[in-house]
């Protein structure tokens, strides 16, 4: 049987891994809240955040902090471009068409990254060194704290944005009813663009702070997008808090099943639990029931 310090280690590892999923999941929430689109290019935003940061350091020789900010800025611009070039021209279409378009966008972004950066995996230095910190018999990296801290800050900032600001509320209004929102004087197109920018920003931030732990390559977006989506579903689509909590729960489940049951079946165990949870609560742990729209 595992000792308490081992258990703690599993939980710490799982929580770090889970914040990865949570951060990827956060971006889904923003776009979903404005447009009801599941943006399958979200994983690619995460990838771009990490890869652009790596190459700003490698090619540009920039200091790490500048490189990360630059990567986030550029990815945000990519997010805007994705909306202007692919979503806005067909805005009248049904949601499912738009979702399929985002799948296409993800393939294009991944391909472009492969051509530009090559097919190798790259490391990024940790923000504050790589010496592990011991904690009650378990150990964690300084970067784990960065990930935890930044995830929390992002979460709080988003919560405040959606609850307290006019543009945040305007975004939510667009999701509820586009027509009514535009009748209220909200520029729906601008809001959609803004939501793409915001979710690209959150995704890129995630990618950049995770790269020192997970390494990055042109194709990390696939897995992160998938797990992030699972995190969203688990937490309840549309709820930023749910996305992060869902991610952390998924990560801890994976880590515990690898540690306590079998590493060969860890994904299977985690997903079986996920499916069972959804069976009991189809709207996710923290989601409100659908059908309440008036």
């Amino acid at each position, binding site marked *: 049987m*595992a*000792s308490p310090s*081992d258990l703690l*280690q*599993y939980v*710490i*590892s*799982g929580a*770090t*891994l889970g914040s*990865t999923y949570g951060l990827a999941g956060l971006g889904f929430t923003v776009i979903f809240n404005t447009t009801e689109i599941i943006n399958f290019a979200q994983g690619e935003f995460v990838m771009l955040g990490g890869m652009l940061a790596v190459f700003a350091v490698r090619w540009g020789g920039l200091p790490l902090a500048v490189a990360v900010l630059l990567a986030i800025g550029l990815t945000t611009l990519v997010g805007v471009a994705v909306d202007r070039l692919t979503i806005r021209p067909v805005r009248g279409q049904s949601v499912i068409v738009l979702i399929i378009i985002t799948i296409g966008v993800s393939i294009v972004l991944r391909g472009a990254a492969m051509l530009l950066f090559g*097919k*190798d*995996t*790259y*490391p990024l230095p940790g923000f504050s060194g*790589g010496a*592990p910190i*011991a904690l009650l018999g378990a*150990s*964690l*990296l300084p970067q784990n704290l960065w990930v935890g801290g930044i995830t929390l800050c992002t979460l709080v900032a988003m919560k405040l944005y959606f609850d307290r600001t006019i543009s945040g509320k305007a975004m939510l209004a667009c999701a509820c009813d586009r027509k009514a929102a535009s009748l209220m004087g909200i520029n729906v197109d601008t809001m959609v663009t803004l939501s793409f920018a915001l979710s690209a920003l959150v995704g890129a931030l995630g990618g950049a702070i*995770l790269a020192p*732990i*997970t*390494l990055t*390559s042109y*194709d*990390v977006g696939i*897995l992160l997008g998938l797990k992030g989506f699972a995190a969203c579903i688990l937490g309840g689509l549309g709820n930023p808090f749910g996305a992060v909590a869902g991610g952390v729960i998924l990560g801890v489940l*994976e*880590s*515990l099943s*690898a*540690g306590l049951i*079998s*590493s*060969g079946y*860890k*994904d299977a165990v985690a997903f079986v639990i996920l499916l069972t949870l959804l069976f009991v609560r189809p709207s996710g742990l923290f989601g409100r029931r659908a059908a309440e729209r008036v």
Partner: protein
Amino acid sequence: MRRFLYACAVGLIGVLGWTLPAQAAEPIRIGAIFSVTGPASFLGEPERNTAKMLEEQLNREGGLLGRTVEVIVYDDESDATKAVTAVDRLIKRDRVVAVIGPSTSGSTLAILPKVEEAKIPLISCAAAKKIVEPVKRWVFKTPQSDALAVRKIYQHAKKAGLSKMAILTASDAFGAAGREELKELATQVGLTIIGDEVFGPKDTDMTAQLTRIKGTAAQAIIVWGTNPGPAVVARNRVQLNIGLPLYMSHGVASPKFIELAGPENAEGILLPAGRLIAEGQVPPGHPQKAILANYIKEYESRFKQPTSTFGGYAWDAIMLVAQAAKRAKSAEPAAVRDALETTRGFWGTTGEYNFSADDHNGLTEEAFVMVRITKGDWEMLR
């Protein structure tokens, strides 16, 4: 404009007319299938580069049997189905004398029936021992089988007095084959495996598996996989402060691994590797010394990137075909095959090949040396 085009056409014909008489005979065509793109591109790209480089080199030296050599490379995009299409094209349209590759075991196994049926020799650049065991008449391979790497590791472990091992393998084809081999050979050499963990090839955190191993009485850890998984393991074991000896497979024997893991995390890792990566430490009298030094010099000046063991597999495969054709004095597939099978004492970048009717890999564990990663570089152990 028209006049310009006309001039171009005349120029082109002139150039062709000038070169043609020198190569009156049909060129000798060697086919190659490499995973130049896709997940296995880390194998296929250096292989393609090497093949192209050797093509130029052979022709510079007057070709083979007085004919020019043409290496036709197709990219299977790391996809077995595309490898099958490619081999069809090589056999039926390009009428090649031999096929080099594919880069991956999966693709190689998929095209075996095709080359057997067409009676064209195949020299695979993939690792799985299933390719040449049981021996197939037309199929050879250049990389060392996993079993040789496992033997080398176990030899080293036994000598160091270790007896209880924990293994941590990737859940892809390479990792699974290694896991099988590790478990099978352990009983033969009298080692026990007391931890058996698995990780997904794309996993980004292995602390759970390592914590589990830490809780056992294992005296050493053996990790089997290709980048980036093992690099993550190297990082995680430092994070968890695990001081056990850490063995890895030849699958990570590239500078990329040290870069990904970070030199401080890779410190002390032991692995079997071909001599290529530690060429500087191969003693001057060694038969491989000149081959390795030349290959590295040519490749690096031509492609401006470091060589890898994988490119070496393609070097060996093409040179094996070339020497077989020379000895057979023929570029007929059947004659080349027969000459290949009688190849003895041929030194390539990987090791010394001694093919025979019941060994189509022809290497022993001597093709490997144990290296230790020290200060971000390879240190050859004696």
